[in-house]
């Protein structure tokens, strides 16, 4: 056997809630050579995590490996007994989870969990294990390598936990490490550090790896070969360079297309005198008890001013916790500002939504990130979209039915979907219904809070295209909040960068290559590119990183 991993004709079956058996992996075969990093890429539900976990002989509850061979280091994981599999887990094959924050036991110290593998398999005395862990912490450039182990998981940041989970995987010198979307939950500025740390450690140890991700640009930095999965089947396999430059399969091309810069059409009225639709001045808002000066203790949004012009879009970008979602809630009046003015369509708006007039509420709609939680699971799509029609426009039943059809057409959903419940829709469809509900109010401004973040790349770019089209037809304006620069770049006329509750820079997309504020520089330079040499060639100003890359 020449390869470390040889998977042949793997089939995995899952039992649905209704008890039906569905084949989710339909005959997957793949090889991984010693020291090679292979990426499994695909949208959610494509089976990439299921395949990766099967390399450890593990299928999540409700799933079952039905046939095929999973040879890892000469042993067929599919046919081993559970005891024999447990002996290989953690020693020969190690796992780095998607959310390290959830995968660390909150009631035990980090060191205890990092060296647990050596205890379980009696690999080395605890003292030696601790020394080795500290070495790994250092190699993964974690701060305070000597002391970090004594802390509890909630006392370190998400990016650090992700690197600590890599240390946990590497402590036993495994032959194969499985990375399951290890950087998806991280900010781009943090992602870079984690990726760099992973890459250098893997390279130094000559360890083979499986890197599961939906992000081609991230994969391009770390993988030697890419396997594209869709619907539980391998669509295409090839070296990273080959896939990026000469993809054969239409689905791979679709994935790649989502990365191409979209041609931006200039607005017809670009030079016409533009009119302000929304202006906010020196708005401050936050959480916690109100202090003597009338400001809350923790300021999530600090003296932010912005202008949105009619028919134009403003993008708000920043890392998690920078206050961008609070800003959206402040503008919509869900979280009333402590100080500052909000002027909408020439009139002063009350800070709290409940004090605004019905028409003011109607003209400004907000669409939330998670369509899953924003749509009432007990109501069919028809009722969900009808609600604003009855509330704002007082349409009768027939007029509502007609309008629901029109709105479904607008968001490119088949009319028959109106009778379905949200749970019977895909993620992209749900987000379209979510958007149709906002459109039903006939708004002038729609605040989109991370509406594409929960969607796969291909689906997200389709949603963005839809938004653009609707804007042309209806003359809407969007405030588009996201942590993803490429999304904001695709649709916005102006981009505002937020950091730590403050507006640090406002910039137009054509000037994105030359930001002036140091934080914007760091942020923009951290967005992964499809070029496989990008990460290695990336030079970042260490002063900037220490100032802003604190997470």
């Amino acid at each position, binding site marked *: 056997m020449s390869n470390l991993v040889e998977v042949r004709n793997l089939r995995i079956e899952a039992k649905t809630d209704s008890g039906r058996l569905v084949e989710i992996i339909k005959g997957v075969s793949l090889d991984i050579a010693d020291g090679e990093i292979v990426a499994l890429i695909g949208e959610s539900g494509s089976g990439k995590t299921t395949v990766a976990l099967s390399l450890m002989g593990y299928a999540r509850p409700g799933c079952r490996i039905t046939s095929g061979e999973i040879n890892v280091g000469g042993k067929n994981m599919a046919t081993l007994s559970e005891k024999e599999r447990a002996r290989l887990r953690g020693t020969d094959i190690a796992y780095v989870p998607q959310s390290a924050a959830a995968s660390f036991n909150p009631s035990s110290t980090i060191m205890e969990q990092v060296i647990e593998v050596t205890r*379980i398999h009696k690999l080395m005395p605890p003292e030696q294990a601790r020394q080795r862990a500290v070495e790994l912490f250092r190699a993964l450039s974690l701060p305070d390598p000597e002391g970090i182990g004594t802390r509890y998981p909630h006392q370190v940041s998400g990016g650090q936990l992700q690197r600590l989970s890599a240390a946990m995987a590497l402590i036993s010198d495994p032959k194969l490490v499985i990375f399951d979307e290890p950087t998806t939950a991280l900010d781009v500025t943090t992602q870079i550090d984690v990726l760099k740390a992973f890459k250098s450690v893997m390279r130094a140890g000559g360890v083979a790896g499986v890197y599961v991700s939906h992000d081609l640009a991230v994969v391009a930095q770390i993988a030697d070969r890419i396997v594209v999965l869709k619907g539980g089947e391998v669509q295409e396999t090839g070296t990273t360079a080959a896939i990026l430059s000469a993809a054969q399969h239409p689905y791979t091309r679709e994935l790649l297309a989502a990365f191409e810069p979209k041609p931006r059409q200039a607005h017809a009225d670009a030079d016409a005198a533009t009119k302000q639709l929304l202006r906010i001045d020196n708005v401050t808002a936050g959480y916690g008890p109100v202090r003597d000066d009338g400001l809350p203790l923790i300021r999530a949004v600090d003296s932010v001013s912005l202008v949105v012009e009619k028919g134009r879009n403003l993008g708000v970008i920043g890392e998690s916790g920078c206050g961008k979602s609070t800003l959206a809630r402040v503008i919509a009046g869900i979280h009333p500002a402590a100080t500052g003015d909000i002027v909408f369509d020439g009139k002063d708006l009350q800070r709290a939504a409940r004090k605004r007039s019905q028409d003011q509420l109607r003209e400004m709609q907000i669409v939330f990130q998670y369509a899953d939680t924003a749509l009432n699971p007990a109501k069919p799509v028809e009722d969900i979209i009808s609600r604003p029609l009855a509330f704002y426009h007082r349409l009768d039943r027939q007029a509502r039915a007609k309008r629901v059809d029109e709105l479904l057409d607008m968001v490119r959903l088949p009319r028959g979907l109106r009778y379905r419940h949200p749970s019977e829709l895909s993620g992209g469809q749900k987000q379209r219904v979510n958007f149709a509900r906002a459109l039903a109010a006939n708004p002038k401004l729609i605040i989109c809070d991370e509406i594409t973040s929960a969607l796969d790349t291909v689906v997200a770019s389709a949603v963005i295209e839809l938004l653009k089209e609707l804007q042309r037809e209806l003359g809407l304006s969007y405030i588009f909040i996201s942590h993803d620069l490429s999304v904001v770049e695709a649709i916005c006329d102006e981009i505002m960068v937020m950091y730590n509750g403050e507006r640090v820079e406002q910039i137009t997309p054509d000037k994105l290559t030359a930001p002036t504020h140091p934080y914007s520089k760091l942020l923009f330079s951290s967005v992964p590119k499809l070029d496989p040499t990008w990460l290695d060639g990336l030079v970042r100003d260490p002063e900037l990183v220490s100032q802003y890359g604190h997470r």
Partner: protein
Amino acid sequence: MTSGVLNLVLKRLGIAAVTLLIVLFAVFFATSMLPGDTASILLGQAATPEAVAGLREAMHLNDPAILRFLLWLLGLLHGDLGTSYANEMPVAALIGGRLVNTMKLAGITTLLSVPLALTLGITAAMLRGSVYDRTVTILSIGVISVPEFMVATLAVLLFAVYLKWLPALSSVNEAHSLTDLVRIYAMPVITLTFVISAQMIRMTRAAVIETLSTPYVEMALLKGASRSRMVLRHALPNALGPIVNAVALSLSYLVGGVIIVETIFNYPGIAKLMVDAVATRDLPLIQSCAMIFCLGYLFLITAADVVAIMSNPRLR
């Protein structure tokens, strides 16, 4: 121990004082609303109205009830529980021995039921969906559904009447040897264990199953941990909070809720004392018993919260 725990305990002490006062007032008003009074109950139906009036006078029962209550409260501040109306004995002396009996019964039941319930709950969670799990579930639901007087009566029928292994009454004063003690306590303890274990088993099983589906337990599995390690090292410490709360709630039943068991087995405990006191409208005694039940409950709940906080590094 850190400031968090200390704060909690102090706050709980404050809440306990307020709760106690509210409970005492509530008990007072409830007893005042009962028909009949101590004097006529003590003298029986044949008593002449004059005799009753005379006794009322002698017992100061003609003073306004609220005044007597407030006087009793004042005495409580000095640690004086008052004097029983029914037999002129200090309440403290009446309660003393009874409380010890109740605590003995509660203690023995705790020692038996908590380890049993936790073991059954945890093992049922580990073997979720197995025949064993289903048996434990069905039995514990069955036991919850059967009222305790039924369990107690059946136990008496079986062990005392048919098999004649155990005495039907639990007179602690007749215990001279260890075997006597076991024979006396066996039935009340078994009955109470039946009553309180079911809830603990259900809660433990649910809490452990919930933590077993967390990503960190899956991570432990992927590290090659054995099933028992996953449960004992990873799931259990994080399920401790809900489990100790369920245990505390169940145990609080052993202080005030054992009246049926004490009555059936004629066990001289404090719950039975209180019911007797209600029969004679013996206000100081009723108040004192209510206060002890309330304190016992508050103590158990606070202890459970302290354990839950100590077991969670994020709150510690």
